[in-house]
């Protein structure tokens, strides 16, 4: 019996005007959105690849260890076309340096400050807005409309139980709304896959499958909201008005109010406080560095010449022994201090960020009243574009940085070897010093001049040679892959939330319909 009701209802729904308009709108909007979103993804991917290639080329050409300061980039998520999340608002890159630990920046934006913060544009927007309205429109007259037409009486005068009728309606709603959801997903996928830069792996297909299920679950929640109002209201017009106002609440009021409430309940501290703490740490760093006394006066002759290196750095191409020794002593004590202070500075940044995360999670919790916000959350988590994915990225970057610091430490004997700052070998440095000393010790002017000549020719010849790059055979290259398991784990509460909302709403519908006056 349930099946029969569902079938009849499904066919009736298919032939309604509102369904046709809604389904066509979904298909057309997807067909308009997707090529644009795919082009956007392609552009971002190109920028990303160019950035990564440039960094790799620079890394391969770096000549001394202190200049290894690459920037690593977060690859754009393929599924950002389905849910943009925060991909455009947060900065997905980090510079790896010895004296700074990368951290997420949430308060500063890159680029043109006059451009407004983009309101996100993605496929899930169509679901959030169009499909959810369609669900309400399909549901609003499911009960109240039948009462107005008098058919509800006829059905209930038979042996059919009320819960069977309701279940049939639910099933019909699921089937009806499944049509636009499937149309939109298939259209989106076809357009996305036609774009040459898009390649979907197994993990992406799993994510897509879950997104599809989440979309169905969300649509069903919205349908049941409409059904509940239909069971509560006597007239279908009233149920529609109630449903649409609920929609306005869910789509516009709750997400805004949640964010505002969260900023009021857990305000961020003023930036000056953080700045002053950072300033204090910098001062004590300067003090400690000032305490590192390296006697440069012992260096007899300050002889060195350098050149530009990769990443805007500078390296010493040729340097004499005394200078080199002084620099090495300096680096051996100063660089570890810098590395240590980098962690302390990061600590301050991290604490400030923790306040932001607390605010954000409160906002998320408050917004979960609205199924639309919950759905948005799930989609962003599954697409790998929400805040936690950026956190994950920056965690990996930090791990990469410590690996790299360790690598440089090992390679340069605790930052003290010549290769940390100079492109020449120790022998060259010793040779330079030897020639100098010879020149100084020469007895007469003629001997001095001849040795000076030899020295200068030698120096010129050495300078003309190109310094070979480090090569970095065993360098720990940065690898980043978004982890499906982690994202899933994050998405489970929201997914469960959608299921629970469905069950609860159905219970409420049952209760309301059981007491419904069919006259």
């Amino acid at each position, binding site marked *: 019996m349930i099946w029969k009701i569902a079938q009849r209802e499904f066919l009736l729904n298919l032939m309604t*005007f*509102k369904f046709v*308009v*809604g389904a066509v*709108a979904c298909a057309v*909007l997807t067909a*308009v959105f997707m090529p*644009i*979103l795919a082009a*956007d993804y392609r*552009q971002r991917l190109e*920028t990303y690849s*160019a*950035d990564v290639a*440039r960094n790799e080329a620079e890394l391969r050409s770096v000549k001394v260890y202190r200049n290894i300061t690459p920037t690593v980039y977060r690859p754009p998520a393929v599924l950002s076309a389905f849910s943009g999340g*925060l991909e455009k*608002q947060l900065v997905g890159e980090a510079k790896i340096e010895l004296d700074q630990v990368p951290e997420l920046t*949430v*308060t*500063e*934006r890159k*680029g*043109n*400050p*006059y451009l*407004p*913060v*983009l*309101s*996100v*544009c993605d496929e899930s*927007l169509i679901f959030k*807005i*169009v499909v959810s*309205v369609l669900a309400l*429109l399909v549901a609003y*007259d499911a009960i109240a409309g039948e009462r107005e037409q008098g058919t509800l009486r006829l059905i209930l005068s038979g042996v059919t139980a009320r819960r069977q009728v309701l279940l049939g309606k639910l099933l019909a709603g699921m089937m009806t709304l499944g049509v636009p959801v499937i149309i939109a997903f298939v259209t989106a996928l076809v357009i996305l896959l036609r774009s040459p830069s898009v390649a979907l792996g197994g993990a992406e297909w799993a994510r897509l499958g879950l997104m599809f299920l989440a979309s169905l679950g969300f649509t069903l929640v919205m349908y049941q909201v409409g059904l509940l109002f239909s069971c509560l209201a006597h007239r279908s017009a009233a149920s529609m*008005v*109630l449903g*649409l*106002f609920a929609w*306005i*609440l869910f789509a*516009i*009021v709750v*997400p*805004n*109010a949640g*964010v*505002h409430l*969260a*900023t*009021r309940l857990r*305000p961020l501290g*003023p*930036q000056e406080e953080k700045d002053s703490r950072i300033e204090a740490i910098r001062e004590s760093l300067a003090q400690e560095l000032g305490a590192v006394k390296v006697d440069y006066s012992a260096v007899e002759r300050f002889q060195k010449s350098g050149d*530009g290196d990769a990443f*805007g750095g500078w390296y010493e191409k040729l340097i004499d022994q005394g200078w080199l020794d002084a620099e090495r002593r300096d680096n051996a004590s100063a660089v570890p201090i810098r590395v240590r202070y980098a962690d302390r500075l990061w600590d301050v940044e991290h604490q400030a960020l923790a306040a*932001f995360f607390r605010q*954000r999670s409160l906002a998320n919790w408050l917004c979960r009243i609205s199924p639309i916000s919950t759905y948005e959350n799930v989609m962003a988590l599954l697409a790998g574009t929400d805040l936690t994915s950026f956190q994950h990225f920056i965690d990996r970057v930090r791990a990469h940085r410590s690996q790299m610091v360790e690598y440089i430490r090992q390679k340069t004997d605790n930052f003290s070897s010549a290769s940390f700052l100079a492109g020449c070998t120790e022998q060259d440095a010793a040779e330079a010093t030897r020639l100098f000393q010879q020149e100084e010790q020469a007895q007469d002017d003629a001997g001095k001049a001849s040795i000076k000549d030899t020295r200068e020719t030698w120096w010129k010849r050495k300078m003309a040679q190109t310094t070979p790059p480090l090569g970095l055979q065993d360098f720990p290259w940065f690898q980043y892959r978004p982890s499906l398991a982690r994202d899933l784990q994050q998405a489970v509460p929201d997914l469960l939330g959608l299921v629970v909302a469905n069950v609860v709403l159905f219970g409420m519908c049952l209760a309301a319909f059981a007491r419904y006056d069919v006259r």
Partner: protein
Amino acid sequence: MIRRIACKEVIENLVSLRFSLSLLLIVSLFAVCGYVSADGYRELSRDYWTRTNENLGALRGQAGALYRVAFYGQEIYRKPKLLSICAEGDEKSLPNFFRVTAFTADLPRVKGRASSALFQFSSLDWVLIISLILSFAAMMFTYDSICGEKEDGTLRLVLANTIPRHQVLLGKYLGAMITVTIPLVAGMLVSLIIVLSSREVFFDAAAWSRSLSIACLSLLYLSLFVLLGLVVSSRTGRSANAMAILLLVWVASVILLPSLCGIVFEISHREPAAAEPKPGDGLWQWSLQARNEPTPAELQRRLAEVAKEMWDNNEKFGKHAGYMSNDVNDPGNNPPARARLQNAVTEARNEVLEDYHNRLLAQAFGRRNWACLSPAVVYQRAAEALAGTGIHRCVRLYRQVKRYGADLKEFVRSQDLEDPRSLHLIGPENSMAVSWRAISHNPVDFDVIPKFQEQDFTLGESLRLAVLDIGLLLLLNLGLFAGAFLSFLRYDVR
């Protein structure tokens, strides 16, 4: 007769469920908006005044020597505006910090406690409530005004009398407009009362007239949706169908279109990132000054290029312009040439900054113009202009800050003339002023130093900025009215 129909419509609407629901929702939102903005305004004002006083205190500290006043980078913050309750116009993400010396002004920057990542929508203000929620309510009042009456059979009765159709249409339009005005006015009043009853907040006459003009603008915008409802209602036979079409149009024009236009603009205007100056290409040493601050690579490169060009040809400003030692009597020094060179370098730098800033603005305005396909965006822009907030105000503020820098330079020049021991060479090199006494070291009276004072838009200027958008809304209104009129004339009442 029109009045009678309008009256009937209003009364019928007033007793309907949708009216009470929307009144409740809208008035409570306006109340929340008033509360939130008054609080936010207080907080922002406090921050603003502390920072401004800190800046003035620091400036007073520099008054011991004239040259220090000239070189001191004053920190000027954007003043929070009470009228941002009406239209905040992305003020949270727009630049609010300007640093200026007598010689140059940095590019505007964003500083403060707001975090952009948390705001999906723009801030809660009147414009948000009106453009999203009241417009929706306006549609709800008219979706069944024609076809609903047809379904009830009352339309036949009305038209069977001698009333011409246009009177019926006008009556319905007026009735719906009056119904929409009630929650609008009630909401605005509630939020104004809340704002005005809180401490530290004053509304002057200009603010009143501005909020009044925003109310009129809002009515114009809402009339658009009332008319849209009438058009669709008089082209469909069933009210449920009218609702479906209206919802789609509303969603598309108010929510989807602005986002879509934004991303289309982004794709069509994405520029390849320029590489930072590198040691190899000869620009590196000239870009060091720009490296201390977060400067985009492209700007770094251009600044380095002009600096390099100037310094490479420094001899054309006079002999030894490129040389400087601290002893003014050193014959290698040529103070006037040096000052000419430094002034020319700064001027060239300022030009590059200005050019870059203009490009940023062109991009932002281009983006705004793209988005104006959506009436909600048009309305938002006009409201922003009328409230005197948003991007126009930022641009104007930056211009004023730069003019203030020029005024300060003039002031330094005139004060400097009174000191016989100064070389009277007003140039942007600090060491020149310190060791050569190129600018006077005499103390100045703090009270005569010009202070920065922002000049707001006058109402006339605001109106001029908004006039195009208002015209656009009017045109849309007229078009829709004509559409409603034509389709109702041909409406089949059976």
